[in-house]
């Protein structure tokens, strides 16, 4: 169990931008070992030209254009319980003149972020999610999606200090609980003021924005056709043109369920502590795995019916009186107090059972909320669903089956990044208020 060591044991070296990582999560190795040097040079440069920061108010600098635009770099950050999600807008319409004016460290940040797909041991850029040729605030560019564990937050802040990020006079728009938790650290360690934003506001704005611009010409939203047949059901894209009302189920470490009636009218219906963190936490304890990817990989191979007690294990078949199929799970982990059963199961089976029970439980609560709120459209987002076809199909099935086709489960390609996008949108909304 050394999943956290990579970050903790760097002894002051910056894990997030130290490029000596032998392994990154998606299996590719980092080809940009030279960048470290580059950054180092930049570091010195900033120290020479950096100006003292103004701590008392939100700092902002207008770019050279006449439009009310915040200065580059444009970031939106969502600091969750487990993951930090970062979106970065890379302007592609930088004029030669502009480029000349551009301070050195701004340029190097752009180059660093866009030329790498992994940062440090744990930072990842989801290249496949990149939104190309986007126009934001009159600028054309690409939107990049980056994530790293919240545990590396202090390394990240330290890097901000070392790079004298505060000299850029940009506004760092941040949402998620970490915006509050790390606010003081940003201030004290890196002389950076966070502009804190509500995570649910950001989530909804981000979601609606990405759906409106689409996913590089394709719709952002998808669903499963024939969800009652998980083996053969097909993923289909769809447009979320009339999204309201929708039940928005955000599955991060925990789960929040929102009823959204319009772009600025919503309420948090409920939440549950049985979320992605629970899946990973239990999997780590039960199987000794260390990452979400590992846990999902195991779950994909496992069979939960050896771990769970099924209706037929109790009643010998279907429980007809209540319309319960024999194959339905009667008790999650219900076999695990018996010695004989324990000997027959594998770690993969345990991972699968964990995934299935957490997913079904979320499905069940979401379904009840949808019925109570009289909403038929249920949109599932959050990083728990990343590379997690088992859960998405299960949720689609559960919504359809238990509502007798009344409810429809919808999913989003950028599942976990909407909070960060929402934070970026807030930055762009800011007009000059000096």
């Amino acid at each position, binding site marked *: 169990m050394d999943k956290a060591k990579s970050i903790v044991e760097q002894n002051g070296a910056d894990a997030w931008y130290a490029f000596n990582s032998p392994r990154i999560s998606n299996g590719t190795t980092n080809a940009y070992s030279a960048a470290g040097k580059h950054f180092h040079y930049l570091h010195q440069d900033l120290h020479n030209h950096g100006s003292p920061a103004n701590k008392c108010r939100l700092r902002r600098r207008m770019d050279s254009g006449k439009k009310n635009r915040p200065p580059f770099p444009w970031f939106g950050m969502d600091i969750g319980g487990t993951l930090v999600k970062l979106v970065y807008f890379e302007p592609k319409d930088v004029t030669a003149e502009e480029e000349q004016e551009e301070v050195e460290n701004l340029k190097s940040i752009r180059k660093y972020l866009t030329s790498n797909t992994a940062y440090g041991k744990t930072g990842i850029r989801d290249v496949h999610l990149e939104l190309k040729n986007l126009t934001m605030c009159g600028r054309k560019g690409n939107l990049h999606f980056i994530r790293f564990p919240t545990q590396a937050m202090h390394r990240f802040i330290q890097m901000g200090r070392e790079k004298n990020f505060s000299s850029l006079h940009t506004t760092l728009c941040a949402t998620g609980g970490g915006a509050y938790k790390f606010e003081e650290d940003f201030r004290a360690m890196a002389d950076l003021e966070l502009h804190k934003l509500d995570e649910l506001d950001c989530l909804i704005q981000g979601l609606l924005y990405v759906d409106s611009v689409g996913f590089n010409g394709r719709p952002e939203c998808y669903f499963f056709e024939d969800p009652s047949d998980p083996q053969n059901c097909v993923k289909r894209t769809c447009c979320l043109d009339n999204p309201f009302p929708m039940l928005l189920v955000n599955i991060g470490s925990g789960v929040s369920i929102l009823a959204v009636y319009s772009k600025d009218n919503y309420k948090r219906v409920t939440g549950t*502590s049985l979320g992605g963190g629970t899946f990973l936490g239990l999997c780590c304890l039960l199987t000794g795995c260390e990452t979400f990817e590992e846990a999902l990989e195991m779950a994909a191979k496992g069979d939960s019916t050896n771990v769970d007690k099924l209706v037929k294990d109790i009643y010998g078949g279907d429980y007809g009186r209540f319309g319960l199929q024999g194959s339905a799970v009667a008790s999650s982990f219900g076999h695990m107090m018996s010695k004989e059963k324990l000997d027959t199961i594998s770690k993969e089976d345990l991972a699968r059972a964990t995934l299935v029970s957490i997913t079904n439980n979320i499905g069940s609560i979401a379904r009840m909320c949808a019925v109570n709120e009289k909403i038929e459209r249920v949109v599932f987002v959050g990083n728990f669903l990343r590379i997690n076809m088992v859960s998405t199909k299960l949720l689609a099935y559960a919504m359809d089956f238990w509502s007798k086709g009344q409810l429809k489960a919808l999913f989003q390609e950028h599942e976990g990044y909407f909070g960060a996008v929402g934070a970026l949108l807030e930055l762009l909304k800011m007009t000059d208020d000096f």
Partner: protein
Amino acid sequence: MAKRFFQETEDEPLYEVSVQEEITARLHFIKFENAYIETCLDFVKDHLVNTETKVIKATGGGAHKFKDLLEKKLKLKVDKEDEMSCLIKGCNFVLRNIPHEAFVYVKHAEPEFRFQTTHPDIFPYLLVSIGSGVSIVKVESEDKFERIGGSSIGGGTFWGLGALLTKTKRFDELLQLASRGQHTNVDMLVKDIYGGAYESLGLTGDLIASSFGKSATADKEFSKEDMAKSLLHMISNDIGQLACLYAKLHNLSRVYFGGFFIRGHPVTMHTITYSINFFTKGEVQALFLRHEGYLGSIGAFLKGAEEDNPNQYSWGENYAGSSGLMSISPDVFPMQRTRSGTFDMLEMDRLERELVNLPLLLDSSSYIPDTVDLTEDALAREYWLSCFEEALDGVVKRAVASQPDLQDARERAEKFRHKYRHKLQTLRHQPCAYGSLTVRSLLDTREHCLNEFNFPDPYSQIKQRENDLALRYFQKVVSSMEMLSWEDRQFALVKGLLAGNMFDWGAKAVSDVLETDPTFGFDEAKRQLQERPWLVDSYSRWIERLKGPPHKCALFFVDNSGIDIILGVFPLVRELLCRGTEVVLASNSGPALNDVTYNELQILTEKIAAMDSVIHSGITKDRLILVQSGSSSPCLDLSRLDKGLATVVNERHTDLVVIEGMGRAIHTNYYAVLRCESLKLAVIKNSWLAERLGGKIYSVVFKYEQPRE
């Protein structure tokens, strides 16, 4: 037991006392671990009295598993009954028939159990049964119920996952681990993410944001205790949340929890209660049942007995034969808990009549018979427990004396002593063992224990002797009243009634006097009475009322035999009849202490009618009627009265209720609010209670109330 007649030697006895064993149908429920199934079946085999029985009803998962064993051992056909319908049938049964069946659990409160009064209308409700999985059932009527939902995350998940995480295989041990753990070491809290509360949403910092969230990110070992606690919270919160969602969807406010996950475990009752409070913001209370573990078997039995019309009967919990609820946490007395989990009993007596509310109760749903809840009042509890313990010698002596011809009376009386003393000791440690502890439940437990050892009526001869004696003075008392002016007579009647009420074998102070000085007479009693103003004194208002038009009909709950009923009550009844008021005399159906029973009162009334024209004409003109209360208790529960009584009360447009005696008007019903005028009177024959009420022994309570406008 053969019939026996105790002949009086001196003079002609007023009536004969006969002892005959009444056959009461009683249900016995025994709870034991599956491991003892063979022992149990041997017992059943030995006690299969009715050889015509061909079928045994069974339910639960084991009905399938043990079918062959049952059929082989008992030579009976096993008739499997649907688990859920048995559960619901049993649940309806206990909710209807057992007072204080349902309770709210409040950890750290004194007492930790808050018992609910039996509501006449039990439907609709939600039953959340937490076994291996969870079933959520909406019950709308006796026969209509529906499984509206469920969850696979239930008791089996706690047990199975708990076993995997902690290597602890036993369910009880897992609960014990959990009760020692700190979930905040394993769970990711809101403050772990936010650094504090998420204020805009009103989520506090201590709220669990992600169960087991820390074990996903922190690279360290977690203690078994902490993981078990985290797991318990996760499952309890999840079930609570689902229950609330279903309750909301179906608009139900009564939610009962049961299943092996709950089964009297304070730890799980607490976490479920917490969760329900959280998710409903206190709007819904989690309710638990004292006999939750028996529901399935009760239901299976009732299914077998369905040819009987269940509406003809009522049932009462027999305190002598039932082992109570364990209120002690498993940490303090692990042994005791284990024992109760292994073996537990419930006995229910069948009453051959239907019991209903007194129609005159202002609000039957909020009516609580008992005046003091001894579970909430430690001082009073201590006093009464000691008081009953001290009185035990006298009761044993009385019991032995009541059966002089029976050789084994002494032995049985000793067994009674042992059993009742043990009950008192149990109640000292676990006041909530049988629901709320009250003076009534202590008295009733004593009656049940006496019955258990065949002392159904230890006061039979005493009652007979005193009735006999009092009858001789009846005419003298009546004629002395006749001579008085109207105003004086009213006062003399009330005083006579109060003096009569001092002749009570239930009160230790009086029974001591009666035991040592049998000549203690009616006049003497009057002298002992407190002078006006009494401790509670609304006599003036009563007299003012009497100057007005007569009452239509008075319902009179009578108390003791002898001087009380004959010289105290009857003269007043006579006066009421003369005023033009019809009188309904309600007496106990079965014996309790020296209280006059319905059968005895019939004989007495006949005798009095023979010497008094007013009573005689009252009887013949149907203006004086006797009814039985349906009870065999020295106290009075106005929510469990004989249906016949309720019918008479309605038919006669009763507008006055008189309740007499400590048991019926002080220990119970002191605060009962009626829709009509009421008169509660008693002499406080207990110095401790008198002092507590601010008076001395033999203080008088005369509480006349008129219905609120």
